[in-house]
């Protein structure tokens, strides 16, 4: 009986005849303690990641149900399913919850929290208490937002544009604004922790260019957290003051400017797109080499592309205001800069593709999600170039073309990466394997369901269907029904993993330390990892992604 985990204390109420429960292996972070207190007051980055995972899954369900109701309303063209007010509130809740309570924390707060210390060979993040505090801040923000929903909802859209949000909306805007403002601080604290951890906590020998790309992309994301989030905090605080005291900052009658809000809002919210996308790119950069059995192609380019994206993204916010009276010169500059985003994005896509090229492919569930991600991200990215073109933007601005574009990035990109990563690291998180065939089936269902849902929206938008209306010309009904039908397939694809993953926690096969034969320090520790991560001093690998198949670049390097 190695590593018995019994406490050895005599419990007064226990029948002494029954032996204590024992664990047939070293106690891991899940079994180190069992009380509720040991979860809600934990400072272990792995447990905090699990707290986040449970919370954001709950928000994902809320966001998904409201999306389903929106799609239900759009089955008929005459807007008879809900009242106008209800419809406005539904898509607002969907947007607010999905963006701020699922997508932004999704990969960083869960996988990032769990994996960054393991990947760099550290015992924890630099500030474990701050890490726990960030979760409580997150839940406080979520509380305010849910209060606004329970009281009667918000109808401004997730963007809270003025003057609708300041002068016209009669809904619970202020609690929702407080919720979103507060949640921003949890992002800031997470980003701060990551930046400091990556700078100072790397194991001996873990130099910057030996770090997994996942760590690089999280570093880039954290910089955005730190530099962009405070600006939206300010914008939302001004909006609250405007609504509560009519200070006039967004009101032309007092010399303010409603478009100023859009500038402040998008100064954060465009970089926020990369908060959502970059961590996903990190996940894909881990999965693709592992399942192609091949060294990541162009490691340094992929790493620099993450920093490049995080930098360029601060200078493109004006492309959200091409038709809002922005000067032609400014629009031209923002258009050119937006095109520049395509360069680092393409660097990543080409390098993943080159990694797959002549690799020894295994099409397991994580790889299916990764390949889906690459395809959908390319479509989402290319349509982004259409939107960045001034002339085309005039035509498709605020139509379903935009909706389809950002769902290809947010769902086709981030959600697929999230699910891919969840399947990839699930054995590490829980110590259990899920049933592979179910994983593959749901990966296919999600890919098909997603495309059936959102591809028709490109056509709808191009034909002129505006976003945020539930009354539309009858000739658009076929494509809308197609889209709604697709969303039911997508829903089934989401429900499957929730069932078989949860099932696997109790009934799944025990996972070995490295079920995928993947590289990276997180695979050198047991599944699930011990409470303090490393039982022996971690040794940084000399070459990152040292898989059996080497690309020609390294062979050239030796000559």
């Amino acid at each position, binding site marked *: 009986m190695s590593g018995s985990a019994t406490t050895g204390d005599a419990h007064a109420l226990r029948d002494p005849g029954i032996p204590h429960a024992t664990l047939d292996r070293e106690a891991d972070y899940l079994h180190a303690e069992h009380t509720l207190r040991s979860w809600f007051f934990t400072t272990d980055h792995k447990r905090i990641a699990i707290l986040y995972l449970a919370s954001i899954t709950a928000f994902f369900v809320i966001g998904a149900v409201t999306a389903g109701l929106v799609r239900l309303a759009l089955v008929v063209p005459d807007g008879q399913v809900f009242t106008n007010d209800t419809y406005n509130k539904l898509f607002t809740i969907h947007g607010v919850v999905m963006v701020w309570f699922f997508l932004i924390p999704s990969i960083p707060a869960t996988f990032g929290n769990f994996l960054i210390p393991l990947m760099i060979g550290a015992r924890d993040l630099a500030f474990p208490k701050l890490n726990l505090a960030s979760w409580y801040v997150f839940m406080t923000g979520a509380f305010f937002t849910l209060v606004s929903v329970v009281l009667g909802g918000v109808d401004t859209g997730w963007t809270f544009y003025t003057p609708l949000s300041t002068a016209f909306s009669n809904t619970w805007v202020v609690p929702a604004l407080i919720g979103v403002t507060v949640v921003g601080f949890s992002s800031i604290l997470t980003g701060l922790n990551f*930046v400091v951890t990556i700078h100072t*906590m790397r194991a001996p020998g873990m130099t910057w260019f030996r770090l997994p790309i996942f760590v690089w992309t999280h570093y880039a994301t954290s910089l955005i957290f730190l530099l*962009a989030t*405070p600006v939206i905090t300010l914008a939302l605080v001004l909006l609250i*003051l405007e609504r509560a005291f009519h200070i006039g900052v967004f009101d032309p009658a007092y010399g303010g400017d409603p478009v100023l809000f859009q500038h402040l809002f998008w100064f954060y919210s465009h970089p926020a797109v990369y908060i959502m996308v970059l961590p996903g790119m990190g996940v894909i950069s881990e999965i693709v080499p592992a399942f192609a059995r091949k060294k990541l192609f162009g490691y340094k380019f992929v790493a620099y592309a993450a920093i490049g994206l995080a930098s360029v993204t601060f200078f493109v916010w004006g492309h959200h205001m091409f038709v809002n009276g922005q000067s032609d010169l400014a629009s031209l500059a923002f258009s050119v800069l937006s095109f520049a985003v395509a360069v680092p994005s393409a660097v990543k896509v080409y390098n993943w593709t080159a990694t797959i090229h002549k690799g020894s492919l295994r099409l397991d569930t994580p790889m299916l999600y990764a390949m889906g991600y690459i395809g959908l991200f390319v479509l989402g990215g290319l349509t982004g170039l259409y939107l960045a073109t001034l002339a085309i933007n005039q035509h498709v601005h605020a139509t379903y073309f935009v909706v389809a574009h950002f769902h290809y990035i947010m769902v086709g990109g981030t959600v697929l990466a999230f699910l891919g990563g969840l399947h990839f690291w699930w054995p590490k998180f829980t110590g259990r394997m899920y049933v592979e065939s179910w994983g593959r089936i749901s990966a296919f269902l999600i890919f098909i369901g997603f495309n059936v849902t959102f591809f028709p929206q490109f056509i709808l938008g191009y034909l002129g269907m505006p976003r945020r209306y539930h009354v539309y010309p009858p000739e658009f009904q076929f494509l809308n029904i197609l889209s709604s039908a697709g969303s039911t397939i997508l829903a089934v694809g989401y429900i499957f993993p929730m069932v078989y993953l949860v099932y696997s926690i109790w009934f799944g096969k025990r996972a070995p330390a490295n079920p995928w034969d993947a590289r990276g320090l997180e695979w050198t520790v047991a599944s699930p990892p011990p409470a303090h991560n490393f039982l022996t001093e971690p040794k940084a690998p000399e070459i990152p992604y040292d898989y059996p198949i080497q690309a020609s670049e390294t062979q050239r390097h030796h000559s």
Partner: protein
Amino acid sequence: MSAPGTSEVGVRLAGHFATVEQQRRAAVLGMWAWLLTELLLFAGLFLTVLVLRLLHPEAVQEAARHLKFWIGATNTVVLIASSLTMSGAIQLSRLGWQRGMVRCMLATAALGTLFLALKGYEYHADYEEHLMPFLGDRPYALDRLPASRLFINLYYAATGLHALHLFTGIAILLVLTRQASRPGFLAAHQNRIEIYGLYWHFIDLIWIMAFPVLYVLNR
């Protein structure tokens, strides 16, 4: 091994760090990262004020003339003096002169409180002069200039946000002073004084930006 009258100086290693040096670096970098975030928060606000000044120069100038320049200037001196005493506390903490350090910290908190008192007096004077346009039921002195209303409101937002930071800073400083006056503090947590000092200097720096943007530039 410390000289008479001084205490040992150092940092106690927390479990998840490998070395004390690593722990110190992490703490300093963490505070700088936080200050970077704070800087962007205030930057957005100052930017809004400056945009307004470009759009409505006359109204902003007229409104700025009603700000209490000399109270603002005195407060600038008060805060710079408090940064001096804070620097003194940091230097003394490095030397292990605990009593002197605690006195410097108390002086810093006192100067910070003086700033808030003067600011409160200034707000009171503004109230008397009917310069609180955000109070809907109170007449506003510069009603003929609508854009002045926004400038004055932003003045309250910016100085209020700064005062909030200062208030929080004083509260933390007092708690820290209490901890720091206990024997053995400097041997275990000397770097807390340095980290806190960064924050205090930052609040000072924000005022040094707010004062010209609000009071001086528009005169």
